[in-house]
């Protein structure tokens, strides 16, 4: 009971602060400070702190609640990796990876900038994030969703995106780190001199994380067009995979 009350108070303070800060920033910074448009793909060689399956090499500082969830998760990556046939990773059942995990899946994605709005389109299963940059705050009463509710503003040439209202049945990474519905993800998108696009990410969750999980990821621009890639194709492909596993000489 006391933990619940504490979490509730922390959430109230946090949400109030975030809303206040966002509204102030957004009203002053609605003009795009950079052109981030294009098709991008992750570049693991650029020295960012994230890697193929998680946001850092170390497991984050989790709460007791999160540790219990984590212990029950059986990922296919990391030190606790199991085979695909044994995993309970929801993405293998074609559930959306959610925000921010979508960034850990190695598929290209596209930014389309338009007045008052930035679209992020992901080749992986065609997910779209509709990020409003017109000064509005988070919508109320919409419930939770896989990719969350995103608003953005420009901090000079940095696009800052704040995402809330995410379902709690996604994992933050591909190694089984959980989160609650109270997770807030702040992403800062900016170009470097070499025209690489960096995303600095801060994940806070008063229920799951004892401290913010801070990381970065690098992307390089491509001349590709996004193609179709649907998770459900894995279902028909699994017939071929099962023939391997069931092979009897």
């Amino acid at each position, binding site marked *: 009971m006391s933990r619940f009350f504490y979490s509730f108070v922390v959430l109230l303070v946090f949400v109030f602060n975030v809303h206040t800060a966002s509204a102030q920033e957004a009203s002053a910074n609605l003009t795009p400070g950079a052109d981030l448009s294009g098709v991008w793909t992750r570049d693991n060689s650029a020295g960012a702190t994230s890697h193929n399956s998680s946001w850092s090499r170390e497991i984050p500082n989790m709460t007791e609640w999160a540790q219990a969830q984590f212990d029950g998760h059986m990922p296919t990556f990391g030190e606790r990796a199991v085979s695909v046939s044994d995993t309970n990773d929801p993405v293998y059942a074609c559930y959306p990876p959610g925000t921010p995990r979508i960034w850990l899946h190695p598929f290209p994605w596209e930014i389309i900038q338009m007045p008052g709005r930035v679209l992020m389109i992901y080749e992986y299963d065609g997910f779209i994030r509709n990020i409003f940059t017109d000064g509005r705050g988070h919508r109320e009463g919409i419930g939770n969703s896989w990719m969350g509710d995103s608003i953005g503003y420009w901090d000079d040439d940095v696009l800052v995106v704040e995402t809330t209202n995410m379902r709690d049945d996604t994992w933050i990474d591909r190694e089984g780190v959980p989160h609650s519905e109270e997770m807030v993800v702040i992403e800062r998108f900016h170009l470097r001199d070499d025209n690489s696009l960096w995303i600095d990410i801060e994940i806070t969750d008063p229920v799951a994380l004892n401290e913010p999980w801070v990381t970065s990821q690098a992307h390089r621009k491509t001349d590709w067009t996004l193609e179709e*890639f649907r998770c459900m194709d894995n279902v028909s492909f699994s017939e071929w995979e099962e023939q391997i596993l069931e*092979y009897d000489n």
Partner: protein
Amino acid sequence: MKKLFSLFLFLLVSPLSAHHGAGVYDTQTVIDLTGTVTDFQFRNPHVLIFIDVTDGSGNIVNWSGELTSRNRLSRQVNGNREAWTNNTMQPGDTIQLNGNPAVNGAPFLRLVRVATGDGTVLLGADNSPSGAY
């Protein structure tokens, strides 16, 4: 008949696919096969090639091999080879495949190199892994 089946030690493996869990393929071994294409599935999440291979006893075995996704091969992000299309190979073509065999002996490969009958490399190292690794 020319030897069709040989094993090579494969030390450096860059997985083409993260779809499978560990243990399905023997990543320390690369098999070298040449045969006739019976089916070419240019699809996601993995492109599939099926070839008929005649073994040392004269029996025909239908092998299949998986690659990365159609999207990646169509962008040619695995090296400096030509981008693949759905016409990259046709049934009846002679194809050489190098790949990691299934651990349980099934005639399935995770492909690391594909070349045409005349030696044009479509994916992977210039030379067959016996020379490349």
